């Protein structure tokens, strides 16, 4: 009986996910045709959120870590690309640089990070994000400090929207593939029981590190694209809590560890956020706060129920 129910349930979920993928594909394909500035920005925000949510899900959903500093890589990618663009490099080189720098930072920080227990990992990632924000404020000769770094208007701007949606599609498909690959299975196994995974011969640290790098790379790339699209970076935005807590909420909201869950949540939350920001701009931190509180209170129910 229960197995029948779960089969029916998963079938409904699959149908829903097909619908969601179709809807977002239509949305994504329509983006290059958007000329209206507001709609263009909204669509771009949605792409950023989808990419961040799904790349976060590799760490948060599949591996089950609470990672509070995903925006660190977004910000690092953004600043790397902005600094290269500001010195007159081509956009393709700048984006490459963003990805390389983001992945190198992730690689370097993964050595100490995975020695921590999951709770301390969450704290340390939040600490790193805060540290990056302070550093980018203090290194004013490079980053422009708290006043921000603005880029000159560019000839390559028509490329940012298409590259954003190509990246998003790659991330969506990549997440789908990773989840069904050997790596995805290993991640899920580590999430369920680290001892078990170790006992069947999985190299836990290597697998975790791969997941970390795979989740950092799209975030850094998207940060680079964001820097070009917005043409203006401030520490409080690039390394702000929005780009770190948003993905956590989007991942945990519906069904962590699936492709459709973070995808649908990212699309939905972007729309809700947009409405809320335009109607009551002062309450946007509280919205995140209330969502986090709700998710935390649901967390144990969900565990004991499922």
């Amino acid at each position, binding site marked *: 009986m229960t197995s029948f129910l779960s089969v029916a349930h998963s079938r409904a979920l699959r149908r829903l996910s097909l619908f969601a993928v179709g809807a977002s594909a239509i949305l994504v394909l329509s983006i290059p045709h958007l000329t209206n500035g507001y709609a263009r920005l909204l669509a771009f925000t949605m792409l950023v959120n989808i990419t961040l949510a799904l790349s976060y899900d590799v760490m948060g959903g599949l591996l089950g870590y*609470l990672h*509070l500093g995903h925006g660190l890589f977004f910000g690092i990618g953004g600043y790397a690309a902005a600094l290269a663009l500001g010195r007159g490099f081509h956009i393709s080189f700048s984006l490459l640089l963003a990805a390389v720098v983001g992945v190198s930072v992730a690689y370097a920080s993964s050595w*100490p990070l995975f*020695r*921590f*227990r*999951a*709770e*301390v990992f*969450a*704290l*340390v990632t*939040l*600490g*790193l994000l*805060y*540290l990056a924000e*302070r*550093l980018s*404020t*203090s290194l004013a000769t490079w980053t422009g400090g708290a006043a921000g770094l603005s880029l000159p208007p560019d000839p390559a701007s028509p490329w940012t929207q298409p590259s954003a949606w190509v990246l998003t599609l790659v991330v969506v498909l990549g997440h789908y593939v990773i989840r069904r690959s050997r790596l995805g299975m290993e991640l899920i196994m580590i999430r369920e029981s680290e001892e078990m995974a170790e006992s069947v011969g999985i190299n836990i640290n290597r697998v975790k590190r791969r997941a970390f790098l795979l989740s950092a790379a799209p975030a850094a790339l998207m940060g680079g694209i964001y820097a070009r699209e917005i043409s203006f970076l401030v520490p409080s935005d690039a390394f702000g*809590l929005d780009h770190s*807590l948003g993905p*956590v909420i989007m991942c*945990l909201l519906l069904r962590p560890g699936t492709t459709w869950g973070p995808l649908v949540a990212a699309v939905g939350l972007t729309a809700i956020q947009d409405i809320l920001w335009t109607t009551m701009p*002062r*309450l946007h*931190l*509280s919205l*995140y*706060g*209330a*969502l*986090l*509180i*709700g*998710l*935390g*209170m649901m*967390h*144990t*129910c969900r*565990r*004991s129920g499922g």
Partner: protein
Amino acid sequence: MDLVSFLQLLLSGILLGGVYALLAAGLALCFGVLGLLNLAHGSFLVLAAYAYQTLQAAVPYGSALGFLLIPCLCGLVGFVTFTALLGGPYRRSPEDFLTPALLITLGLALVLEELVAILWGHSMAGVEDRFFPIQLGQLSLSGNRALILIMMVVLSAALHAWLKHTDSGRCLRALAQDQLAATVVGISPVGTSALAFTIATGLSAMAGLFYVTLFTVTPHLGLPLTLKALFLIVVSGRRSVVAPLSGGLLLGVLETLIAGLMGASWASIIALTTLLTCLCYRPDGLFTEGGLHKAH
């Protein structure tokens, strides 16, 4: 830098360290008993600081009244918060409590931060020195600061005495040592945890009153302060309430000296980097002792 200004810096470092130590002591209390890493801890400090500033400006003898009332009120708010938000998840699964607790307290920190920003705007809070300065040779120390120094010592001693010599303090330590055994002899885990959370929030409010008297407070100070205090208890590596005290003092002195030498913006960067580096060398700092969080 001459000797006098160095000593002056040292003194103000010790005061900042005292604030860190009080914050960390409350956090350690929560962590020891509940296994709760409370990310909203510093937000209560900010809330108390702003409330104190308003009260002090509005009412005669506001500062004395504030020192009596605000920690109690904040403790009450802490109790309500615990019962409303954290009690349920804790009761459902005490062993799987850390992740929901992190989510809930982070959410709470954001809500409190915005609440303060809405109620008091983005202006800084600070309280002017009211007492006469005390002159010790060439060193000058305002009466406020001397009073705070004394209160910090008294408060730490009182906390220590409470934990060692009263029934409720013993319950708390018993629960921190071995939850199962404590439950068997009739200690209520939820009730004692609520008590620990209440006292921790009260202590955080007290630290807030000190902080606003010594320095200035902005609405966005909460989370960074909490992070520093959390790293402190992680680094100090023992679930004792007294251990973070010395760490807090050290951090305060370090941060103030760096601020004096290199400028304020580098102080918190270097402090945080130091804490993170220490943590890298002691990744299991918190969890090495047995009890509630035995390594499985």
